[in-house]
C-alpha cells in the first residue's frame, strides 16, 4: 500500500470519526468543534485529490463561515455550556436501524454498478479554468447560475435580516 493510499484511509477515518462524534456528543459546542474537524478532513480529502480550489473554498466557506455562524448561534441561544437532552430511545433505535439498512442498500447498489468511464483526459481543476467556467462568456460557462445564485444569496440575506433583526419596540 502506497503512502497515498495510507493517507487516504487516514483522512477517511478522521472524517468519519469526527462526523460520528458530531452527531453523538453531548455538548453542543463540542459537536460544533467536531463538525469543524470533519469539514477540515473533507478539505484535506480534496487536497489529497489535488482539487486545491475546492479545498480552499471548503476551508473558507465552511470552516471560516458556516461553522462560525453556527458557533455564533450557539452563543445567541445560550446553549454553549449545557448538556443537550439525549435522543429519544425509540427514535434512535428506529433511525439507527433505518440508516444502517439504507446505507447498506446504497453501498450494495454503488458496488454492483458498472461505472462507465467518460474520458481519459487528465483532470485539470486550475483556478483559471474554474474562473472561465464561472464567469466567462463561453457557451459552456455557468454564468447564468452564477448570476442566479447571487440573487439567491441576496434574498437569503434579506430574509435573515428581517427575521433575526431585533424587533424594535412597537411604534404603532
Amino acid at each position, binding site marked *: *500500500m*502506497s503512502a*497515498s*493510499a495510507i493517507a*487516504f484511509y487516514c483522512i*477517511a477515518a478522521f472524517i*468519519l470519526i469526527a462526523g*460520528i462524534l*458530531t*452527531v453523538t456528543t453531548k455538548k*453542543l459546542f463540542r459537536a*460544533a468543534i467536531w*463538525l469543524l474537524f*470533519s*469539514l477540515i478532513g*473533507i478539505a484535506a*480529502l480534496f487536497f489529497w*485529490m489535488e482539487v486545491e*480550489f*475546492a479545498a480552499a*473554498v*471548503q476551508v473558507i*466557506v*465552511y470552516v471560516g463561515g*458556516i461553522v462560525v*455562524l*453556527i458557533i455564533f*448561534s*450557539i452563543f*445567541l*441561544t445560550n*446553549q454553549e455550556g449545557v448538556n*443537550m*437532552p439525549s435522543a*429519544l430511545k425509540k427514535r434512535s433505535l428506529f*433511525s*439507527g436501524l*433505518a*440508516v444502517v439498512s439504507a*446505507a447498506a442498500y446504497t*453501498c450494495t447498489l*454503488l458496488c454492483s454498478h458498472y*461505472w462507465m468511464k467518460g*474520458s*481519459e483526459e*487528465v*483532470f*485539470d481543476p486550475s483556478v483559471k479554468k*474554474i474562473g472561465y*467556467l*464561472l464567469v466567462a462568456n463561453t457557451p*459552456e460557462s455557468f454564468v447564468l447560475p452564477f448570476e442566479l*445564485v447571487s440573487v439567491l*444569496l441576496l434574498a437569503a*440575506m434579506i*430574509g*435573515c435580516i428581517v*427575521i*433575526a433583526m431585533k*424587533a424594535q419596540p412597537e411604534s404603532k
Partner: protein
Amino acid sequence: MSEIPLEHLLMLSTALFFIGAYGFLTRRNMIAMLMSLELMLNSVNINFIVFNKYLFPDTIEGLGFTIFIIAIAAAEAAVAIAIIINLYRNTKNIDAENADHLKH
C-alpha cells in the same frame, strides 16, 4: 491515489451522508440538526468531485456544481439559523421535541 478504487471513495461519502441523516433524525437541538445537515451536503460534494475526477475529467462540471452547493448551503444555513434564533426569542427553546404545537 489511483490505486484507491472509486467504490471506496463513494462508500466514504455514503457513510458520511447516513451519519448526517442519523444526526438529523436523532439530535433534539435544532442547531445540532443543522450541523448534521452540513455533513449530508458535504458528502454530496465529495461525490461530485470524485465522479468528476475519476470518471469525467474532460470538463469540470462536477467541481462547478460543488461550488454552487457550498454557496447555497451557506444561504440555507443562514436562513435556518435566523429562523431558529427567532423561534428562540419567541419560545426560549430550541428543542425540536418541543416545537410541536402545530399538529394533527
